[in-house]
């Protein structure tokens, strides 16, 4: 902090200026300082006896104590006892980061009758012991950190935690296996769930898959019971072909606006007989079949779809684009076709939201040298799943797209866009090693004399039964070639692959009938857009960020939002299901309470000073601050406020302040250095 003291040379402050002056202070609070050794984490660097002695002389400190592990029960008991016996009205615990144990120590203080918000953490582990080598310097720094915290704690006011009621309904966004699992777990616990899916039916990418690694059980067979249960569950309100328009409110009390896209089919009247599907002449690219076949304008994703009702793709429908045709309406026995259908908006009120927005595959046309789009027999892994799937366009026969011939040689290209920080994504997509092995095995099941070569950089098999599955692939005669593919091109009806064998140290040219790219897994772009709209955190690649990578893996930093599935990062089916159940458990744990507590360290407005310029409103990331245009005063919705302090910083006059982080306290803290 800049200050404008005159610069005179040769004038040194008296050695113990600090305590001399502090002891003259008139209003002296009673502060107890408890120094934690954190085993040797702190005590190995900071000289605890010296720290205690120096802290003991600070104004307001009436007692200093230390203990090997303050967070342990005896450690907490020491604090509780001291509050009573020494009549403490403020507590400082000098220990690790407040993210770990602030709540622990505040609760301990609360149990001893001290307002929990009069307890502050002085972080002398991460901010001192771990980053300072010299013991004397570390001790002085720890002393400074405690002194600064002391300045703050004497300004602290007792606060009461806010509580808000909970609406015990949940919203689950995305009905792939993650969303389905989370919805079922919550619904089976007896709470209502609104399950929103943007596609016409549920199941997500899992419905596209053939068999699953490492057990080779049929994806459809294990998924269908779940989709059916979801469709029939009395507690689940299923909204397919729908998207989240907006979310307002706060944890426990969200208001969600859902846009139900025009389906042009009345789901109540439609029986799902499929007559319309046969007669429709409109053609379109089929997302679900990965472009392997042309779809129809009226379509359902698959015959086992839940709900088993078709919708019309307005862009491909001849009637809706040109006003002629109307065949589906003519053949429909129940008169369910509604050409005048429009988007509808539905409002739902929920208390918790599970985001299970899933993944997509990286756009392989960006990998220019791989010939995607130029060479028809270069396809991605999901397209190959459709070729292998019994419900796919070839009923499970492996035929290549260009001429329908059975490919005798397939080259599988791993890391197509993964682990690539220049043209693709820098991370490992995690599932490709195993699904490529599986696809090669399944290919050899279908085409017994087929040759499969897998070009890889590293084979990663960290999962139960994975390494054994990899061995099964090599036992089966599948050739593994270590080297990233650089170029794929066409020569006659062959697909040529330029690879290398880095183990032998040479370049290799492979001739194949077909190439399958294990394209990188990326966050679903619609999920990314939704996260941006909801202002939940996403990482540089669009994956949603968990509140803590180890200890809070299914929560977000925005209270009330939980994560499940590949929207948070690439993962396989068992991991996805486990995470979905964990998210459901978090929701249920929240629903086990009647009211939610909310930290009272929120922003507040001094209306005497506020002129309503709106800097705070525009700075708030949580929509918690609004300026009343008539009164020209800002107001804080404490239930929405996350206490980040951005508004208080933005406010030029100091009308906006942050409870227990007043500017006065902060300036005085800064003055300590």
């Amino acid at each position: 902090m800049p200050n404008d003291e005159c610069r005179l040379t040769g004038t040194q402050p008296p050695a113990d200026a600090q305590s001399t002056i502090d002891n003259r202070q008139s209003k002296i609070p009673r502060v107890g300082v408890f120094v934690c050794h954190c085993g040797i984490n702190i005590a190995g660097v900071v000289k605890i006896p010296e720290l205690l002695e120096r802290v003991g002389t600070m104004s307001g400190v009436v007692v200093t104590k230390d203990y090997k592990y303050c967070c342990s029960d005896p450690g907490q008991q020491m604090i509780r006892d001291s509050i009573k016996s020494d009549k403490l009205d403020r507590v400082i615990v000098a220990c690790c980061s407040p993210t770990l144990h602030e709540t622990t120590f505040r609760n301990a203080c609360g149990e001893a009758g001290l307002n929990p918000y009069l307890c502050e953490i002085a972080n002398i582990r991460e901010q001192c012991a771990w980053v300072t080598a010299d013991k004397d310097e570390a001790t002085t720094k720890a002393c400074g950190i405690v002194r600064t915290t002391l300045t703050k704690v004497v300004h602290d006011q007792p606060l009461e935690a806010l509580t808000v009621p909970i609406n015990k309904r949940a919203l689950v966004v995305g009905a792939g296996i993650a969303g389905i699992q989370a919805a079922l777990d919550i619904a089976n616990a007896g709470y209502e769930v609104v399950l929103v899916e943007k596609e016409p039916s549920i199941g997500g990418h899992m419905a596209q898959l053939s068999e699953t690694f490492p057990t080779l059980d049929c994806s459809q067979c294990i998924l269908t019971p779940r989709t059916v249960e979801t469709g029939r569950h009395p507690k689940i309100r299923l909204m397919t072909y729908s998207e989240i328009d907006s979310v307002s409110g706060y944890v426990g009390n969200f208001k969600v606006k859902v846009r139900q896209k025009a389906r042009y089919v009345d789901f109540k009247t439609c029986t799902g007989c499929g007559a319309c599907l046969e007669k429709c002449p409109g053609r379109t690219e089929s997302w679900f079949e990965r472009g392997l076949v042309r779809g129809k304008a009226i379509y359902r994703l698959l015959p086992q779809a839940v709900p088993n009702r078709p919708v019309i793709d307005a862009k491909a429908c001849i009637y809706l684009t040109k006003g002629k045709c109307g065949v589906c309406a003519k053949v429909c026995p129940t008169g369910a076709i509604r050409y005048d259908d429009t988007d509808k908006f539905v409002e739902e009120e929920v208390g918790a939201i599970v985001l299970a927005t899933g993944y997509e595959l990286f756009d392989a046309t960006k990998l220019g040298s791989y010939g995607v789009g130029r060479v028809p027999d270069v396809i991605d892994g999901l397209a190959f799943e459709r070729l292998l799937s019994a419900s796919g366009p070839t009923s499970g026969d492996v035929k290549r797209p260009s001429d329908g011939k059975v490919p005798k040689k397939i080259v599988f290209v791993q890391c197509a866009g993964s682990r690539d920080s220049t043209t693709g994504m820098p991370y490992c997509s995690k599932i490709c090693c195993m699904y490529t092995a599986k696809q090669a095995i399944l290919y050899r099941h279908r085409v017994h004399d087929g040759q499969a070569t897998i070009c890889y950089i590293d084979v990663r098999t960290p999962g139960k039964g994975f390494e054994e599955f990899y061995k099964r692939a090599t036992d089966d005669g599948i050739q593994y070639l270590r080297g990233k593919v650089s170029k794929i091109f066409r020569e006659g009806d062959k697909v040529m692959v330029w690879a290398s064998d880095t183990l032998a140290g040479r370049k290799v040219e492979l001739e194949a009938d077909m190439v399958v790219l294990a394209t990188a897994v990326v966050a679903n772009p619609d999920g990314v857009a939704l996260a941006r709209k909801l202002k939940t955190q996403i990482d540089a690649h669009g994956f949603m960020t968990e509140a803590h990578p180890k200890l809070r893996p299914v929560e977000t930093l925005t209270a009330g939002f939980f994560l499940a599935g590949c929207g948070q990062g690439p993962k396989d089916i068992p991991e996805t299901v486990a995470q979905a159940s964990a998210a459901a458990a978090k929701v249920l744990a929240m629903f086990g309470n009647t009211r939610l507590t909310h930290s009272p360290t929120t922003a507040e407005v001094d209306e005497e000073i506020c002129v309503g310029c709106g800097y705070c409103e525009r700075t708030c990331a949580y929509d918690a601050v609004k300026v009343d245009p008539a009164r020209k005063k800002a107001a804080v919705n404490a239930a929405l406020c996350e206490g980040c302090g951005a508004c208080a910083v933005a406010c030029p006059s100091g009308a906006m302040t942050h409870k227990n982080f007043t500017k006065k306290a902060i300036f005085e803290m800064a003055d300590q250095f």
Partner: protein
Amino acid sequence: MATSRSSTELLEQIEKLSGQTVSDCYQCGCCTSGCPIGEAMDPPPSKAVRLLQLGEAPELLDSDGIWMCASCLVCGTRCPRAVDYARIAEACRVLVLRSKQSRVDPDTVTGPELEEIPQQAFIAAFRKSSV
């Protein structure tokens, strides 16, 4: 041996001259896969970088491979870790040439086609491979 410097010094020199960090390479082999003359290059790019990673810079400087790179830059363009092998090869050549050793002696290049080859090729070849 191209120079009398130690392997560590050579690696430092190569990294400085090329602006590349050899530890960035994770040996995926993409450079070797894509090299249009990869079959003729010994060692091929990925193996050359591996030699540097292993502290075998002198072996690389003595090799034939560094003289085969025609700086078409395909390897660097496709490298997932943005390592430009063409610049590493250039640095290696420069180090050899600066120790007054030519790879190609202009006088030894003969043949009837010499009449036809565009002079840009001669200038380029001699700039890259002779003192």
